[in-house]
């Protein structure tokens, strides 16, 4: 029943990569994702995988090589962080627009400038509209499980979209925690063999990436958008199947003490742990507080989230990335949008937090819950675009 181990988040996903044994990996080093490339290179050197490892000269070429490899009909993966993801930007759209189900491990880190190597979500949040499925991970266990499941999701014939599996740089990528791994054969069995519908090497000449005129481009975009909508049911099916195999069944988001909650915090990745801890302390005092940890951000679980928040009086949405729109962060705008059709809408405010590795503490979440209490008592939402943990505010 599983293998008990102690691994960092990076080693956990590297282990998943070893167990999956993809045909091609093209990757480039960048902090804090570099370790994954180190571990994997060692697997190659030790003959533990028979992957073709292409040590490219940039992340732009990493994503380009992955596109070439995936179009040639094989299972393909890469890993990156921050500026590396930014350099891939152009090709992220090409990968999803070409409907190539490759996988990308994002070890979340702040984007420059100024340069900062610590954690926030400005890298993957910026890529939220690139047609990639995005799954976020609270800890090493989730990063490992999410990654194994991601292949089955992206490669499903109703989806055929690339998938990003994100976890927090350093906070979970470098912290060693207990983890339960699956046996190698079980992972291989779960992900199965990749049998694409078309390939440039199938023997039948295949053209990939043609010039798409106004006569066809819109239809192709519609198909990509539709695939993202259809992905939700596939994701739920895969989560269920994985749950039956491991005893760890995940949802689109996790509801923590939400049954009777009047105040809720919506958060993703590692800070969800701190939020839940704070929630527990306040519950001990009899306060009706809860946490929603978003796991699947693309496709966005709109109806499900609205339902989960329908009985709540006030919600604070936490964003570890600003969208510089002047109206709040990316998670906030989507969550607030999700609640628009509710008959009894909760007050919804946004907190930008933890940018560039700023420590996120229990006190920060206490402050947020207290602010929600204030909103409920006054009956006024007040300022919606707020910050926590930043000096001078």
């Amino acid at each position: 029943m599983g293998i008990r181990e102690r691994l960092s988040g990076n080693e956990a996903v590297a282990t998943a990569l070893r167990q999956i044994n993809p045909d091609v990996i093209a990757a480039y080093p960048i902090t804090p994702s570099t370790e994954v490339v180190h571990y994997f290179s060692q697997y190659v050197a030790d003959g533990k995988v028979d992957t073709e490892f292409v040590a490219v000269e940039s992340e732009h070429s990493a994503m380009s090589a992955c596109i070439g490899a995936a179009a040639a009909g094989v299972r393909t993966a890469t890993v990156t962080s921050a500026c590396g993801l930014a350099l891939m930007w152009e090709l992220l759209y090409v990968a999803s627009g070409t409907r190539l189900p490759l996988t990308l491990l994002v070890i979340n880190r702040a984007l420059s400038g100024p340069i900062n190597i610590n954690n926030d979500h400005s890298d993957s949040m910026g890529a939220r509209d690139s047609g990639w499925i995005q799954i976020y991970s609270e800890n090493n266990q989730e990063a490992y499980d999410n990654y194994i499941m991601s292949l089955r999701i992206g490669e499903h014939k109703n989806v055929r979209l690339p998938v990003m599996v994100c976890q927090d740089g350093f906070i979970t990528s470098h912290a060693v925690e207990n983890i339960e791994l699956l046996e190698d054969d079980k992972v291989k069995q779960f992900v199965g063999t990749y049998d694409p519908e078309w390939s440039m090497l199938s023997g039948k000449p295949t053209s990939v990436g043609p010039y798409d005129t106004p006569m066809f481009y819109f239809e192709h975009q519609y198909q990509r958008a539709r695939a993202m909508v259809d992905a939700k049911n596939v994701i739920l099916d895969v989560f269920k199947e994985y749950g039956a195999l491991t005893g760890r069944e995940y949802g689109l988001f996790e509801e923590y003490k939400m049954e009777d909650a009047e105040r809720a915090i919506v958060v993703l990745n590692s800070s969800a742990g701190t939020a839940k801890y704070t929630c527990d302390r306040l519950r001990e005092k009899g306060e009706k507080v809860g946490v929603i940890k978003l796991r699947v951000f693309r496709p966005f679980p709109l109806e499900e989230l609205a339902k989960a928040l329908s009985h709540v009086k006030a919600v604070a949405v936490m964003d570890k990335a600003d969208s510089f729109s002047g109206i709040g962060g990316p998670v906030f705008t989507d969550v607030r949008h999700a609640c628009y059709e509710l008959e009894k809408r909760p007050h919804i405010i946004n907190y930008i937090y933890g940018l560039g590795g700023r420590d996120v503490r229990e006190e920060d979440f206490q402050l947020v819950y207290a602010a929600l209490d204030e909103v409920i008592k006054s009956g006024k939402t007040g300022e919606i675009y707020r910050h926590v943990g930043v000096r001078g505010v």
Partner: protein
Amino acid sequence: MAYNLKQECCKPERFVGGHRLCAGCGAGVAVRGVLRALKEEDKSVSGVATSCLEVSSCLFPYTAWQDSFIHSAFENVAATISGAEASYNALKKKGKIDDTYKFIAFAGDGGTYDIGFQALSGAMERGHDMVYVCYDNEAYMNTGIQRSSATPKFAEVATAPVGEVVPGKMQHKKDLTEVLVAHNIPYVAQTTFLTNFKDMHEKAEKAIYTKGPAFLNVLAPCPRGWRYPPEDLMEICKLAVDTCVWPLYEVVEGEWKLTYEPKKKLPIEDYLKLQGRFNHMFAPGAEWMIQELQAFVDKKWDKLLKKCK
């Protein structure tokens, strides 16, 4: 077997007519000529950088390519093809593929000398079994004739126009072929369309069937950018070679070899005067430009001869 154009042309075409390239454009001629060097029994994957070639030859749902084809972006064809080659190796290793596939990247000079240079250099250094073919028409033709680092000095282009004080582009052409030689790859060659295409065919054949990375730089004129009548394509290529503006040579495992030496080296005016982009060099008082360009060509030619000895 000795090269025979007629026989080569009896092979099934791999890049067929019906594409939308201009009459008198060198890009299609280069692709057709290079792909002709593939053995009939072999399959191929061609990658094409964003370019006139790409937008004119593979428009959904049509294609002029009879083999597999991929385009993903402008600056990354070398990386894209290196990924496809890695897939082939993975499938071969696992015994999942029997056919022989060859991997060829095509890009214009903008996609090669400039924006695609990093990806090209990386792919060559990594040693993929692939051929990178640059069809060099000496400017960004697809976006409307802007300067690239392959544009020769004094040529008139949209971003280096001839004006009251500036006579066209003010920098000499980058010698990319030599830069590729410095990568110490097994095969590098420079060619163009000459008489019966023997030079290009033999170089393409060597490039494709030499194991490891190979680079082929093909001078491929553009009638719109160079401003010549379509029927002059072959004549211009011949003059590029006979004036030593575009010498034909190859470097095999570091050994330099001249593959064509003009019987009589012609003055560069013979080459320049057929092209509208150099018109201003023939105005009264502009003789210095021709002299400077001639001196540049002569110096490079002498250096090349020494390397090829």
